[in-house]
């Protein structure tokens, strides 16, 4: 999976989890840019990513993410 495919895959997960088809992600997207991506929905989003990609993140890793690009970096290291 290349970087663009990974970004599209994440975008689908975000759209499905947050029930918003208008969500468009870039590597620079942060929680502030996405309606509904809050501290409350964050854990559900991560859980969904882990389940669909069959990977596992550490809490420390997750706490350090600043934007979508950094989530992608973590995923790429695990795939």
């Amino acid at each position, binding site marked *: 999976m290349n970087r663009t495919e990974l970004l599209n895959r994440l975008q689908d997960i975000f759209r499905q989890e947050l029930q918003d088809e208008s969500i468009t992600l870039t590597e620079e997207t942060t929680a502030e840019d996405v309606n*509904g991506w*809050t*501290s*409350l*929905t*964050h*854990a*559900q989003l*991560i*859980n969904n990513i882990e389940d669909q990609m069959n990977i596992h993140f550490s*809490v*420390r890793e*997750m*706490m*350090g993410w*600043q934007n979508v690009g950094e989530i992608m970096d973590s995923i790429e290291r695990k795939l």
Partner: protein
Amino acid sequence: MIFNSLPFLLFFTVVFFLYWFVGEKNVKVQNWILLLANCFFYGYASLKMLPVILIATLLFYYIGLKIEHAYDNPDSEQAEKTGSRWTTFGIVIGVGVLLYFKYFNFFIESFISLFSLFGLQSNWHTLHIIMPLGISFFTFRLLAYVLDVNHGKQHAETDFVRFAVYVSFFPCILSGPIDRPQFIKQLGKLRVFRFETAQDAVYQFLWGLFKKVVIADNCASYVDAAWNNIDGSDASTLCLAAFLYAFELYADFSGYSDMAIAVGKGLGLKITDNFRTPFFALNIADFWRRWHISLTQWMTDYVFMPLNLSFRKNGKAGIIMAIIINFLIVGMWHGDSWIFALYGLYHGLLFVPLILSGAFYQMPKIQVYEHLNLPKPKDFGRILLTFLLVTLGFILFRADSLTHFAQYLTSMCKMSLFTMPLVRSALTRTLLFTLIMIVVEWLLRDKPHPFAVQNHPLACRIIYIYVLIFCILEYAGDAQSFIYFQF
């Protein structure tokens, strides 16, 4: 030295002129003036404890640099290990200082009670510990700093003066708001005096002062009288006192926060918000997004989030666990008593229906009739219900023990609930001023702060200032200490 006192007025006048005239063109001078002002302010309040905050500041400054230095290592695994070790050290020191000064005797007493419950004797003794003022506030600032540096959200501060100003900033040191390390960024830039900002600061300060001395202090007289004579009071009086306590607490703490934020503005610095019209919250989750915001956000980022992420495989049960633990800590943060833990647990449990129904994830917005500027009946009902639940929680917050709480609650549930409450002196005007506060905050609920009137015509603003000063001078209640100083 409280904001509504002559010593503070003199102190701030001196700081203000030195800061804007001597430090006008040099950011380093501005920061040094702030640091000296912080030391004087803290030393004036508690000279003995000044070394505690100074040593803690030095230590965390060093830890921050060590964490950042650790991540310079090209071996990322080793870097993470060393960085985490220094962060853990910082957390142990920060939490340890807080536990020792604030909770040591509480734990000893709890163990003694537990042992005696099983008929066991223990020869443990409590210690005479003086709690440093503002410890709950400055330790949270220090902890946030090491955690953010470790997560790469914040660079370690190399300038000690800037770091020390962040930790000990005098408007917030005794009662918050709890600013985050991002505050330090402002200290790197020269602050320029802006008349409009200073004007806005005056409006916010006066509004905060009005809430504190006219509303909170007047409510306090009625509330204290009721709590001091629970058995001799009618249920209706106790019920009214419970509502007034909710307003007292809000006016006291938000009044302090408004004044602190205004003082910060007067020095060209933005302090984080602490309240956003909490009594218009539509449910308990909404309430905590509006009440003591700086603490709620701190807890969300550093306690709830890691817990929620750890429990993510447990679905809603995981969220409930994370919320309950989070609110138990919020409760205990307020003081060394099991009653505060119960207060936290109560609020945590109020979240359960919201989590189960999914309402927890929504950010509700009040539906209003545009032409009347009044909430629609359904939302008015939700606001009222949330207020009732919060007021019930505040009875727990105000009680000294569970027995005390039960006594108050049972005394409130008597037939005398349907009689007229006792009318003490100043009650009518207390209720009137409280109503004015509610109406003003409702009308200005979408503004940056509850008394943001800088866009109003000049004549109106002059009248506002005149009325506020008149009320403060004429109708101030008996001077009371700020409730949150004890925490």
